[in-house]
C-alpha cells in the first residue's frame, strides 16, 4: 500500500496535516499503537523540517506486512553537513520560526530515536531526502 502527500514550504498553518492523515490510516489498519506513536513523532518532525527549512516536498508512505517506510523528499537549500545537523541543539531556523517554538534542534534527533532505520541524503541548493523505516515486530 502506498500513499503520497504534498508538503508546502513556509505554510505553518498546515504543518502536521500529512502526518495526521497517516496516523488516521495506521489506526484504521490496527497497527500496534506503540509503533504508531513512534512513527508519528518521526513523520511530524520530517514534515515540519520541510515547512521550516525547504520550499516544497512530498511524503510517501509504503506499508509492507512487516514495516512502514516513509520517504520525505524536498526541494530546498539542502543540508551541507548532515552529521552536524543531527546533533541535538544544532539549528539554522530563522528568528520567526524560533519565536513559534521551533528551532530547538531536536527534530532530527527525535526522528533518529523514533525509527529503526534512517537514511538522509542531501544536495546543497537542490534538496533533502529523508528515508525512515520502522518495523512492526521486535
Amino acid at each position, binding site marked *: 500500500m502506498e500513499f503520497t502527500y504534498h508538503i508546502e514550504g513556509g505554510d505553518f498553518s498546515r504543518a*502536521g496535516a500529512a502526518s*495526521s492523515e497517516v496516523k488516521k490510516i495506521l489506526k484504521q489498519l490496527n497497527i500496534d499503537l506503540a509503533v504508531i506513536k513512534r512513527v508519528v513523532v518521526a513523520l511530524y518532525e520530517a514534515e515540519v523540517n520541510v515547512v521550516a527549512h525547504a520550499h516544497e516536498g512530498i511524503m510517501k508512505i509504503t506499508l509492507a506486512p512487516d514495516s512502514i517506510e516513509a520517504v520525505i523528499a524536498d526541494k530546498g537549500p539542502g543540508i551541507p553537513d548532515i552529521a552536524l545537523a543531527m546533533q541535538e541543539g544544532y539549528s539554522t531556523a530563522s528568528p520567526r520560526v524560533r519565536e513559534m517554538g521551533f528551532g530547538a534542534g531536536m527534530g532530527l534527533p*527525535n526522528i533518529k530515536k523514533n525509527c529503526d532505520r534512517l537514511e538522509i541524503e542531501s544536495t546543497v541548493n537542490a534538496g533533502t531526502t529523508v528515508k525512515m523505516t520502522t518495523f512492526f515486530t521486535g
Partner: protein
Amino acid sequence: MQVKEIMQALSLTPCSGHQGLDREITGGYVSDLLSDVMGHAREGEAWITLQAHKNIMAIASLKELAAIILVKGRRPDEDTASASDSEGIPILSTPLDAFETSGKLYQLLASPSGESLP
C-alpha cells in the same frame, strides 16, 4: 483526574474544546519548544505552555495530550481554538506563570485529595 476537575481546582478559564473536558489527565509536561514536547510528552498529559498558535494543536492531537494550559493570561489564536474544538482537546487559560501552574498541577496529581506532599 479529569480536565474539568483540574480546571476547577486551579481556577482555569476554559477557552475551547469544551467537549473534551472529561478527558483524563495522567501527568503534565512544561515546555515552549515544540520538538521537545513532540519528543518527550506522553499521551494523556496536560501541556503547560505560552505558545498559543495553531501548531500546538497539531502536536496535542498527534500526541493525544489531554489538554493544553496557556499561562500568563494567554488565549488561543482563533484558528487554534477551532482546531481545539474539532479535536475535542481543551485549551484552558490561567493568569499564573508556568512555574506556579506546574507546581499546583503537580501537587494536585500527586495528591488529589489535597493533603500536602511528604
